[in-house]
């Protein structure tokens, strides 16, 4: 029943991309590896994001599901996909709250489809929580140590 998976564009509350919202039903990670035409996939917390790496070129949307916000495996999945060069839409779906937004953004998510719509004002503030950051991540922000020493983010290979 792959065709019922996935969020619709209407569910996407926040998006940081200029391209068209992907409107394909997502398939499971297993199906994605078997089906050569799938362009959208949904990762569950127990899935290994790395099995998708051979297919990144044809994927326009990867949804990462957070059945419970306390299960942080999706943060690693997202970062791994961006580290591997995925440039499509990376959508956080499920139990996504105000207080997860800033970290999710840092891990490479650029679209958010929370189960419960979030207060827009609170969310805007949450995205802007950190004027600067300590860690280097896939958002390529210049880190505090880099600012201190006048160096630029290292290009990731």
């Amino acid at each position, binding site marked *: 029943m792959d065709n019922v998976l996935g969020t619709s564009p209407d569910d996407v509350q926040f998006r940081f991309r200029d391209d068209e919202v992907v409107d394909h039903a997502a398939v499971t990670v297993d199906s994605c590896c078997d089906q050569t035409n799938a362009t959208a996939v949904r990762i569950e917390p127990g899935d290994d994001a790395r099995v998708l790496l051979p297919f990144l070129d044809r994927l326009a949307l990867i949804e990462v599901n957070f059945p419970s*916000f306390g299960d*942080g*495996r999706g*943060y690693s999945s997202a970062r791994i996909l961006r580290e591997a060069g995925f440039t499509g839409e990376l959508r956080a779906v499920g139990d996504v709250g105000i207080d997860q937004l800033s970290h999710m953004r840092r*891990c490479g998510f650029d679209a958010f489809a929370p189960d419960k719509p979030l207060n827009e004002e609170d969310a805007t503030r949450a995205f802007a929580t950190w004027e*600067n*950051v300590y860690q*280097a991540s896939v958002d390529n922000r210049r880190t505090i140590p880099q600012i*201190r020493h006048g160096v630029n983010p290292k290009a990731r290979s």
Partner: protein
Amino acid sequence: MYKYDQYDQAMVDARVAEFRDQARRRLEGSLSEDEFKPLRLMNGLYLQLHAYMLRVAIPYGTLNSEQMHALGDIADKYDRGYGHFTTRQNLQYNWIKLEDAADILADLSKVEMHAIQTSGNCIRNISSDHFAGASADELVDPRPYAELMRQWSSFHPEFTYLPRKFKICVIASEKDRAAMRLHDIGVQIVKNDEGEIGARFYAGGGMGRTPMIAPMIRDFVPLDQLITYAEACLRVYNRYGRRDNKYKARIKILVHELGRDEYVRQVEEEFAHMLDQGVEPPREELERIKPFFADPDFEDGPKHVDRSDPDFALWVDRNTNRHKHDAYVSAVISLKPVGGIPGDATGDQMRLMAKLAKQYSFDELRIMHTQNVVLPHVKIADLHALWTQLEAAGLGAPNMDSIEDMIACPGLDYCSLANARSIPLAQRISERFDASGKTEKLGELKLKISGCINACGHHHAGHIGILGVDKKGLENYQLSLGGSEAEDTSLAKITGPGFTEDGVIEAIDTVTDVYLQSREDGERFLDTYRRIGMTPFKEALYG
């Protein structure tokens, strides 16, 4: 010690603002208690039996007198005039109102302090050797490395919702004063055969209901890969640590179930990948941090004290540690007065310790995981004046590493997890051993008391450990022997059936008698136990 720059300060201020907003949403009702709980926990705010408890981070246990003074003021302003120093080198306030929490965090931020990540399933406050930068036996000061890791682990975007809490310890001497191998990750700064400084990593140690000693996972990580390697360790844990059962979610279970070698293989694979990701901070950052921990201007002076006052001489013998400069010592301020609550200090005592640190210890204090306070750099010539003031304030107990210097968790008097009380037991034991004069005869004897299986009182690592359990509605205490949190790390073994509160005090008396009768020259309780084994103790207890 480390001073915040504008960026560090802005990070803490941002967190205070964020928390104020979260508390507002909770009080308005747009956040449920379930949603608020993990957020308040990440700011060190717990709901305990009687009130909220706030845990303040003291990174690697180091603070200055202004900070200690502020902690005393907060105790008076928002709590009941005291605070409790913990085995993570932190401070807990036990009587906090939710409405005040954001204001307390704002007060803390004014003195470069916070409660960030002192709780929750994230990387916790990093602990270290309480004699760092002072001890004669260290390779280097471990704190610059701990500070580098503090910054890296603060608000880490990937590792904020780990399977379970994560504790890191950094030391830099062969002697382990920080229970390094009982941490999720233990780091020992070492020198390799080429004379380069690097980091040796241990992973998967811990206490709790399944105590484990961390195996070494890498002998030498070059300093310019330190953060990258830590990141790889954490990523493997975040992805594969168990999330189906919170009691099996710590990294020790992952390392145990995968086996050390398989965990190492996965970390190495991730590490090789990460090395291309540019996550390591510029090497200049470590060099920027180091001077903050440079030696103060030590002066030559007398190397011996006047021992004509026997009480003073006893305190010097017991409560001072050899310093790298021979005119100085590190002085331990015992928070274990006879009959007192281990680790508690009043607001007045905190302000006095702050004043003494300013006067006698280059403005610096340390918190020990044994719930005492250290003045790291005290001139031997100043010791008598220092001791006189400590004595007058009830802070001069000469009992470091003795049976009276026990670790005890807050237990059922405060904690919502506890099965039994720890504090009254600790109080009665210290009164009894002090009154009988046996403390002195026993020498070094590390007693550790936990009020439940979560082992906050480190009972697994006690020469003598006590675990409070609930037995059909009654408090019952299990006795264990032979643990150590030092470089000879070992886990204590249970003697047999548990005891009542009175019974366990008798039992401790009994096992210490076995020791006194069996010990050979120079042996500590632990040494005798290791030599003669459990049987003689068991026979004396249950025979």
